[in-house]
């Protein structure tokens, strides 16, 4: 990897982190507000938030999938390093990158099936009960993010990037 493309990769990574951080933050605040408004509305004003459960469900999935790219960039999935912690040099590299390849493969399959699932939901015109929000496009969006994560993880393995330390927002 040249110095220039390295710079671009680092900058892209920083922007991706910041963008997902802001989006995740907004979704989480919204998720909290939905419940608070619903409960307070129900007890104090006897008018709960219409469709609160559906907002919650959609926001939840949005948080899970928006959080995923940053986790992949950080190698932040939980794994057991009882055995592998003692590996050094080539063996440690091989272990890390083979594990990443497997993660990328599974994510790729998940992405493919999420897309198919989305197409199926679209063909039924499946919508949520109250808000009439279409589920197909939403499933396809999760498929795109999962696919992006598969690509990210794949390139991290191929380029043999060192393990990131997380590094804040």
């Amino acid at each position, binding site marked *: 990897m040249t110095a220039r493309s390295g710079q671009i990769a680092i900058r892209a990574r920083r922007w991706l982190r910041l963008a997902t951080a802001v989006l995740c933050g907004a979704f989480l605040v919204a998720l*909290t507000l939905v*419940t608070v408004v619903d409960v307070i509305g129900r007890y104090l004003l006897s008018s709960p938030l219409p469709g609160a459960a559906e907002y919650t469900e959609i926001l939840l999935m949005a948080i899970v999938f928006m*959080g995923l790219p940053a*986790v992949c960039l950080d190698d932040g999935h939980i794994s057991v390093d009882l055995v592998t912690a003692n590996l050094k040099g080539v063996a440690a590299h091989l272990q890390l990158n083979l594990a990443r390849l497997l993660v990328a493969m599974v994510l790729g399959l998940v992405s493919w099936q*999420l897309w198919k*699932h989305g197409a199926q939901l679209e063909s039924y015109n499946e919508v949520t009960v109250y808000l009439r929000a279409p589920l197909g496009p939403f499933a396809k969006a999760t498929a795109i993010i999962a696919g992006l994560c598969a690509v990210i993880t794949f390139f991290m393995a191929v380029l043999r990037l060192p393990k990131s330390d997380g590094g804040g927002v």
Partner: protein
Amino acid sequence: MAWPIGMALLLTLIFAGVPIAFAMTAVGLIGVVSIVGWHPALSMLGQVFFDSGRSYTLSVVPLFLLMGNLVVQSGVAGDLYAAANAWLRHRKGGLAMATIVACGGFSSVCGSSLATTATMARISLPAMRKYGYSDRLAASSIAAGGTLGILIPPSVILVIYGILTQQNIGKLFLAGVLPGLVGVVGYMIAVRLSLVVHREELETQPKLPLVERFQALRGVVWALALFVFVLGGIYLGVFTATEAAGMGAGGAFLLTFMRGRLTLRATLSTLFDTAKTTAVMFFILFGALYFLNYVNFSGLTSDLRSWINALGVGPYSVIFMIVLIYLVLGCLLESISMITLTVPILFPIVTGLGFDPIWFGIFVVIATELSFITPPIGMNVFVMRTVAPDIPLERIFAGIVPFVAMDVVRLGLLIALPAMALLIPNSM
């Protein structure tokens, strides 16, 4: 693929360092494909990763995580320790006992053991060192106290258990209260035991006047109010566990704001961390749910059940064996992986033997707490290490023995007296 092969493959991948979530999905996929073929196996993938995640009840996970992370950000831990100290400092080993009490208090608004340990370590370790406590006692009391995070509600582990077994999360939380308090008392006894065993002589601080002791409580009133609000709401049926999580997160925002800690930068970081942890946990859940399909198809549970019948052992022998399984697994696996791997398999067997599903949840959590502080991979001990890298692991593990002993006693008590867990939820 027969289940012994599947299990062996899964453990191989996990110990080769493949992230648990993806190891479970991959092996689950291979297993399901081998039993029902490619097409249904693949379409189940889309269903598990989309439909089971789009669930109203599952929103408790990010919301309780957010509540705990905000409480860490609010800096209330320092006040909790100061308050516990004001009441206990004149007793022998008072600072260590105050650590335990403060950990218990912190656990009542935070559902994570690691967060509890890391937060309390930064506060109480310097205090104990200043007054001549040995690193052995100081570090082990923090690591042990931190385990209370997952028992005293809210608790991330109980949420996961509730989701995997479709039990009422509110009831699980209420069931955790009494065993959690027993845990606090047990660990305080362990502190005194430790002083006796290691012949540690400590100076005690002069007793504070009662007025000052009450003044010290002022800083923790709002944190305790948050706990009472969330748990009381569940107990009285004012809100469901899901709603309690949202209200708790809202309350934690308010608490952090009132303490002047709700800055943009820190809050964005807290929110982002919460989202990342949520993503990690959901992919483990998805992996576990997918793997569960394979477990069901492969007949593992019914095989285990017929073995137990063939052996002719009684229900308590089975429970004893499960304790041993958790002790061994606890040495090898990290908590969430251990729970997601074992609970779906053991739950039908244990409840089939007539044990209460809520009780078993508390049992699993106490067994998990043990795994946090036992070698070789006691997670809390490692968290201690990151806060105080100068303390050798062996010293912490040496100090942990009395605490582990009290955990074993507590587990025995829970088995002998199921009411310890079930009294409060059954009175709902």
